[in-house]
């Protein structure tokens, strides 16, 4: 019941609103597919999805690759230093993502912290946000992969070692295939998180400068609450939801295949 009121109902209302022209108050006016037609031609919308792809790279792909290598290295290391290092790498993950943004906004403020203006420069802003997100995300795949490595039979690695396989070959031929389920989970959850990313953008750049870091979630927020163009905002949010559902379905299907 509550689920219907809080999630299903609003979601359907959002889809309905995407077919209207509405400022949020008064009666919505039916607009058919106008908002969607506008989306297709809106350069800001396409730019926001491009930036989102860059953030998938920074939040899902890069942390997964780095996390795999680091997890394998730390797992071989064992002992106290491996526990300490894992905790240090994981530390950013415990922060609320908005607070992580506050920390980095201070670090990268033109007058505070490092006194650089990378976030204020359209040429460097996206790369900087990407770097911050790699920093934030890295601990999550690392911890998941290290837990997964505990599951693998150590005899596999030892046997390969005796056969003369070097570290990289063992990593490539044993660790990676064995960690397949974990890699799927991490890539799926991080990709979905990257598609929804809002907090760091809001705190670090507000989508600027000149849309260099605009993402769909922030773009829909702008239309809802700043431009009062609710119909258009709803259309963006509907497309985003659709993309997320499709990505989730693709991951679930890919995971089922042996």
């Amino acid at each position, binding site marked *: 019941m*509550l*689920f219907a009121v*809080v*999630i*299903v109902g*609003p*979601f359907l*209302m*959002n889809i309905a*609103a995407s077919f209207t022209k509405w400022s*949020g108050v008064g009666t919505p006016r039916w607009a058919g597919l106008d908002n969607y037609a506008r989306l297709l031609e809106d350069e800001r919308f396409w730019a926001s999805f491009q930036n989102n792809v860059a953030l998938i790279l920074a939040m899902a792909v890069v942390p997964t690759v780095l996390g795999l290598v*680091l997890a394998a290295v*730390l797992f071989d290391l064992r002992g106290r*230093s491996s526990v*300490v*290092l894992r905790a*240090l*790498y994981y*530390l*950013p993950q*415990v*922060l*609320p*993502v*908005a*607070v992580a*943004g*506050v*920390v980095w*906004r201070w*670090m990268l*403020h033109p007058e*505070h*912290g*490092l*006194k650089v203006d990378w976030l204020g420069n359209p040429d460097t802003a996206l790369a900087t946000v990407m770097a911050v997100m790699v*920093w934030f995300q*890295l601990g999550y795949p690392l*911890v*998941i992969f290290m*837990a997964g490595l505990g599951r693998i039979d150590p005899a596999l690695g030892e046997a390969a070692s005796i056969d003369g396989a070097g570290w990289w070959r063992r990593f490539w031929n044993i660790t990676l295939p064995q960690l397949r389920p974990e890699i799927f*989970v*991490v890539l799926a*959850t991080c990709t979905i998180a990257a*598609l929804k990313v*809002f*907090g760091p953008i*809001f*705190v670090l750049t507000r989508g600027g400068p000149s849309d260099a870091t605009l993402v769909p*979630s922030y773009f*829909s*927020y702008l239309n*809802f609450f700043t431009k009062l163009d609710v119909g258009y*905002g709803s259309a963006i*949010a*509907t497309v*985003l*939801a659709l993309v997320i*559902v499709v990505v*989730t379905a693709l991951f679930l299907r890919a995971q089922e295949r042996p």
Partner: protein
Amino acid sequence: MRRGSLMVALFTLAGAMIFPFVLVALNAVKSPADYSTNGPFSLPSELYFKGLVDFWFRVDFGEKIWNSFLISASVAVLAVVLSVLNAYALGIGRIKGRLWVLVLFLVGNTLPQEALVFPLFYLAREVGLYDTHLAMIIIFTVVQAAFGTYLLSAVLGQFPRELIEAASMDGAGRFTVLMRVVVPISRPTLAVLLIFFFIWTWNEFFLPLIFLVSNDLQTVPVSLAVLQGEKFMDATTSSASALLGIVPAVVFFLLFQRTLTRGITVGAIK
């Protein structure tokens, strides 16, 4: 030798990861004068807590912590109760079409909040819940319970049926079975869920930013985020604010570390 250089590389990376924490902490306990003469990288010439204290009182940070705590704790408890009741009905009661109900719950949890926010905002205003903690508690309870139901029904699906049958034979009703048999045995899973719901809700940003416009209702992340760029936020005050955002998160992590590391693979499904 190879091991030595590997360790150097690993610890250098660790240093880079915690560098922001260290720099923020250093400057949060530095006086503005010290900062302007020696810059951000020097050690504070003396420990200076006035920046932290001033910031705390200026924004009434105790109130923000209380708001976050109230919302997160209520959501954690209510969402666990709701998840257990739902999952019990789905997992053991075996209602019709349970697979579809579960898929619906999972999709509900993966949907972006952007696709729900305006209708929720509109409805909350209509019923007078806009800008209240209650609206946040209701919404997040449902969102977290959607995930909890999905997860718990998988767990309860494997629950030993003999136990339930034995209890029913002794004349226990469905509710008694739930309270006396199912809940005590699933306690570890429920504890993990409780802590995760608490922390996830504490970390939420998007919906609280939109729903809690009154300053005195705001949560820690929202309040810190909207304060950035205020005139009084000079270098040391800003770092004090960042430090105050970091501290509760690190405290939770240390408190719940064991449960979290055990449950993090559970949370991975989210």
